[in-house]
């Protein structure tokens, strides 16, 4: 945990009126708004909390340790990814004072870590919103990283007593949830949208909070796509294992009954073909995304599946020695499965719109279902022909 140790005491700027209020609303001041207990507290108790003119702020390091790195690896592998979070509230990087900038972040720990590691030699306040452990962009889409939560955390942390300026630096990808003019109206803080990537923050701060055009654009380069693959792959894997098992067992069927020899030979090949389709849709197509023809993801996945089919089928079965029905069945199965998984990569991509996804799905999903169904039936028929 980040908490408990070495709490930073920060003098608050003006406490006179607040103190009375605190005494009124909180019978037990020790319970009040401690960062760990905030979750359980009823809202009235989370009003201003000054005790002895000081507020306790948790200092954090701009250097990630082994556990932080391990956490990133685990989250990228979908291990505990949905519960990788820290307590919302105010944190300090370096030795911030009342003039220091305030950076807003989500309480997904990876978001927070990626932010603080860029702040070496920078003194800043980090205002962490309660986003249920989800990253800024996904959460802004849901509205949890949003106007109301920013206003709530400004009040909870007594931010207006800690800094003498009235500016918040919000990551630009938080903008789908934040109405800058409404934050200003309700809490008096001006929202300044910072760069898309935390790595650009030092340059942004140095240039007087001006973001160059490049800092404002979302990218989706091969590395961005690569690090997203494991989660996508692991989520899809269980369906593939199930389908593979079904094909493996059914492969023993033939006109003489059931043959375990066929299960092993034909069944293993079927599993290889299905894994090829899966790999093509979840790895090859996403990685080669810009180089595959078509705009719709389903179409890109279809092409990748088609190419994968020709490569792998020739190697394991051979076109000359296979019946036409068997060949057709695998063209249909591999291309439709690949198409489906690539279509699901729209959720991980940074540039697909809901209208566009709905449009491609209206056409692609029926074709994928027909392709897979007809392919499977033909594959079954082929069992009894040869």
């Amino acid at each position, binding site marked *: 945990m980040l908490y408990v140790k070495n709490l930073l005491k920060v003098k608050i700027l003006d406490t006179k009126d607040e103190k009375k209020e605190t005494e009124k609303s909180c019978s037990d001041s020790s319970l009040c708004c401690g960062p760990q207990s905030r979750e359980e507290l009823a809202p009235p108790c989370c009003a201003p909390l000054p005790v002895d003119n000081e507020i306790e702020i948790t200092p954090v390091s701009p250097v990630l340790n082994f556990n932080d790195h391990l956490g990133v690896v685990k989250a990228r592998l*979908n291990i505990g990814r*949905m519960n990788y979070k820290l307590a919302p509230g105010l944190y300090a990087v370096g030795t911030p004072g009342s003039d220091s900038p305030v950076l807003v972040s989500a309480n997904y720990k990876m978001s927070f870590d990626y932010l603080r590691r860029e702040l070496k030699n920078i003194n800043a306040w980090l205002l962490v919103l309660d986003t*249920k*452990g*989800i*990253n800024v962009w*996904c959460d*802004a*889409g*849901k509205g949890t990283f949003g106007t109301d939560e920013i206003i709530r955390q400004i009040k909870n942390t007594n931010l207006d007593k800690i800094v003498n300026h009235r500016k918040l630096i919000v990551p*630009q*990808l938080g*903008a*789908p*949830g*934040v*109405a*800058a*003019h409404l934050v200003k109206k309700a809490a008096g803080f001006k929202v300044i*949208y910072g760069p*898309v990537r935390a790595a650009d923050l030092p340059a942004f701060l140095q240039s007087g909070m001006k*973001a160059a*055009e490049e800092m*404002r*654009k*979302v*990218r*989706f*380069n091969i590395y961005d796509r690569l690090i997203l693959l494991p*989660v*996508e792959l692991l*989520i*899809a894997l269980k369906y593939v294992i199930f389908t593979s098992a079904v094909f493996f067992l059914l492969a023993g069927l033939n006109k003489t009954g059931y043959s375990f020899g066929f299960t092993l030979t034909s069944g293993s090949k079927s599993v290889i073909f299905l894994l090829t389709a899966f790999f093509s849709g979840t790895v090859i197509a996403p990685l080669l*995304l*810009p*180089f595959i023809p078509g*705009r*719709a*993801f389903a179409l890109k996945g279809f092409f990748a599946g088609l190419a994968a089919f020709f490569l792998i089928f020739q190697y394991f079965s051979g076109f000359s020695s296979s019946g036409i029905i068997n060949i057709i069945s695998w063209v249909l199965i591999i291309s439709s499965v690949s198409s489906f998984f690539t*279509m*699901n990569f*729209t*959720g*991980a*991509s*940074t*540039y*697909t*719109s*809901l*209208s*566009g*996804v*709905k*449009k*491609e*799905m209206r056409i692609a999903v029926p074709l994928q279902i027909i392709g897979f169904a007809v392919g499977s039936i033909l594959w079954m028929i082929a069992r009894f022909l040869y």
Partner: protein
Amino acid sequence: MLGLKYLKNVSTLKLEENRCNGCGMCAVVCPHNVFAIEDKKAVIKDIDLCMECGACELNCPTEAIAVKSGVGCAAAVISSAVKGAGGSCDCGYDSDDSKASGCC
């Protein structure tokens, strides 16, 4: 971004020019550089780059922009069709089947 352009003519983004006060917030918040400010008015440079995130609409102080915002995620569309939910990006934290969706 070489070759990374999504479907043409699908975005629901609309800009009502006579309501625009030229503040430029839309151009600031847009992650795909869809807007430009010309002669103190916002203009849509390339609507096909729009991913309907809704940041421009929410940050427009004069309500000059309208877009049917949502998340372009096939898994979310499927899960909302199956469960009959609203069609938002279900990243899974508020439901039991927390790893069901491949989204985000």
